[in-house]
């Protein structure tokens, strides 16, 4: 291997697949932050309210998908989305909506959204556990006061709970960004980056460049780029949610 200076980075700037993959990563991250953390927050709020029955069953079961390896999840959803006999299309056909039955993983325009669904589904429980753990640190007497004031459940969740667990939520968002910027297994199993490279993500591009195309040097340059891009996004998200370094000094 010879020293090529910044050549790999020059190639990187012009590598349209990489930048397309980056765009996909950002899209997936946006879907997942909204889907995973948003839904997880709603579910957590519900599960701490008095409305819901079978709370402990829900709590135990919701985390279950996160315990399964990404490969198995991708594999299961591959069958759910299958055109001929998949669950989604079977359901649509049973409802006499066969026109809506599609080859879900074959349309390059919607593939990223469709491929994000299993991801969102799998990690709702993951963020529920984090958020519910954070909720335990809230003093219940605060809610009692709110109840006397006549605050509704929704108001309570948004005005009281959310600000109080801002720190853990920021961490959850950061984990979500970090996880999705290097997402690999789900995409690899479900679409292999296709059709073409329409669902390519950065880590899969690194993998293919390293182990299929055998370009180790270029793959390393890409990895550094991924690190920098992810750091920028994580930093940005933290700045948006809270100003983290203004902690009390002692």
């Amino acid at each position, binding site marked *: *291997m010879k*020293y090529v200076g910044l050549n790999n980075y020059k190639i990187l700037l012009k590598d349209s697949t990489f930048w397309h993959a980056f765009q996909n990563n950002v899209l997936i991250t946006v879907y997942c932050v909204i889907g995973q953390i948003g839904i997880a927050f709603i579910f957590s709020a519900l599960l701490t309210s008095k409305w819901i029955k079978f709370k402990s069953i829900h709590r135990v079961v919701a985390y279950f998908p996160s315990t399964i390896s990404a490969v198995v999840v991708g594999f299961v959803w*591959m069958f759910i*989305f*299958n*055109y*001929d006999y998949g669950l989604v299309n079977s359901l649509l056909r049973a409802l006499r909506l066969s026109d809506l039955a599609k*080859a*879900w*993983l*074959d349309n*390059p325009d919607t593939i990223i959204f469709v491929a994000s669904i299993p991801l969102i589904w799998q990690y709702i429980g993951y963020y529920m556990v984090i958020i519910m753990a954070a909720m335990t640190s809230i003093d219940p007497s605060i809610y009692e006061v709110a109840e006397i004031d006549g605050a509704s459940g929704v108001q309570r969740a948004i005005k009281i709970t959310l600000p109080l667990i801002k720190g853990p939520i920021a961490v959850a968002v950061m984990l979500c960004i970090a996880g999705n910027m290097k997402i690999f297994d789900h995409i690899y199993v479900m*679409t*292999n*980056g*296709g*059709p*073409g*490279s*329409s669902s390519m993500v950065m880590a899969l591009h690194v*993998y*293919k460049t*390293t*182990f*299929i*195309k*055998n*370009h*180790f*040097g270029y793959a*390393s340059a890409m*990895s*550094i780029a991924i*690190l920098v891009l992810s750091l920028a996004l994580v930093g940005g998200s933290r700045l948006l949610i809270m100003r983290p370094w203004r902690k009390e000094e002692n």
Partner: protein
Amino acid sequence: MKKRLVTLLVAAVMALSLIGCGGSDGETKPINGSSEDETDTGDTESNGEIEIDMLVHVSRSIVGESGFATGFYTALDDWIEKHPDVKVNIEEMDQTAYQTKINSLGASGDIPDVFMLKGSWTTTFVDNGWAMDITEELDADSEWKDSYIAGGFDPAIKDDRIYGVPQESMTTGVIFYNSEMWKEIGYDEFPSTWDELLDAVGKFKEKGIATFVMGNKPNWPAESCWLSTLGDRFTGTDWTYSILEGNGAKFTDDSFVKALTTFQELAEAGAFNEDINSIDDTEQNSVYFNKKAAAIIQGTWFIPTVDTTAPDDVKSATKLAILPAVDGGSDDQNTVSGGAAWFLSMGTNVKDAKKRELVMDLIKNLTDERQADITASMGGVTAWAEPEYDAESVAPLYNEYLELMKDKISVPIYDACMEASVIETMNTGLQSLLIGEKTPEDLAEEIQMEQDMVQ
């Protein structure tokens, strides 16, 4: 006191996490071969026992089901039994995992003593100094060397030196068709012209059946099983050799673009299943077995699968053919892609002469008639030219295949011989081509660009 404790703690944690992160910045690792100063830990143990490290993607769990795996492990166990003084450390895994591991080991200078080499890796593995030149041993044992199918060694040859012995051989472009279904639309035999094929596609489409099912998610079937044959029908085999040797042929040549265009037109005519890019090479079989597709192009590995897992009616209706002749193609239209794709190679870490001899002996045992006969008797195809087996006891489809191949010419399988990075570009692009997201001209250009980068 407290502060110092804190500092120590933080230092300890950082040191721990360094183990993980340290490697990230200095990626330019010596790619070429082993580090010389390293004592060959694997070569000789303290008790004088020789150890041979092997890495393969043949699964022992399918011994008795797959002909090739059975032949391979029978021969291996036999050899181990005869060499009690040698310790063989074999590691097996699936092909995807294998690809990751062998490349990592190679790049780290720790290539195993015996490993499986894909034809399209030859250039890289040789340039990086991972695969051992075994030309002399093979030349010295010409009886062994000459017992393989013609051109069997080709993909493992670079600059006239041989770097691997062929194992499993395959014909990748065999059409398996359900003759009953074709009869229903008026074809007693598989179409022999391209127009007839297009006509059949139209008729199947009316019935809501895919003419061909293709599970192209792993993205090699379109290239390996289809384009390798279809491309050759337009370009002729000389073009392929010219590409391989860098003698002037280009992917942007009219003939190759014409092949891509024909392929795309076939897809546009509705010859394939809707979910062509999202089902894999196992799921596609079940579409054919469930009669939702009238034919499938597969490799010879599919013969035992039909025999053991197809429903009885499909099994008895299944017949074999090759793609019909194309209009405006090259002279030879009686062709189908086939040959050896995987080779057994010696790693460059074998330095000791005695060990080298043992490794060569092991490779020979794993690739000659000792495994070929067993494989053939179970309906598997190896690169060994004339295996001995009982023709009565194998699947009828296997004999039909041998009958079919009698007057056919084998042409190179693209992904068995072309550069891996070129193949990856081709494979990815074909997915887009087949759903009309890319024009043949653009794809041809992309492939040529990758080819230029390699050379």
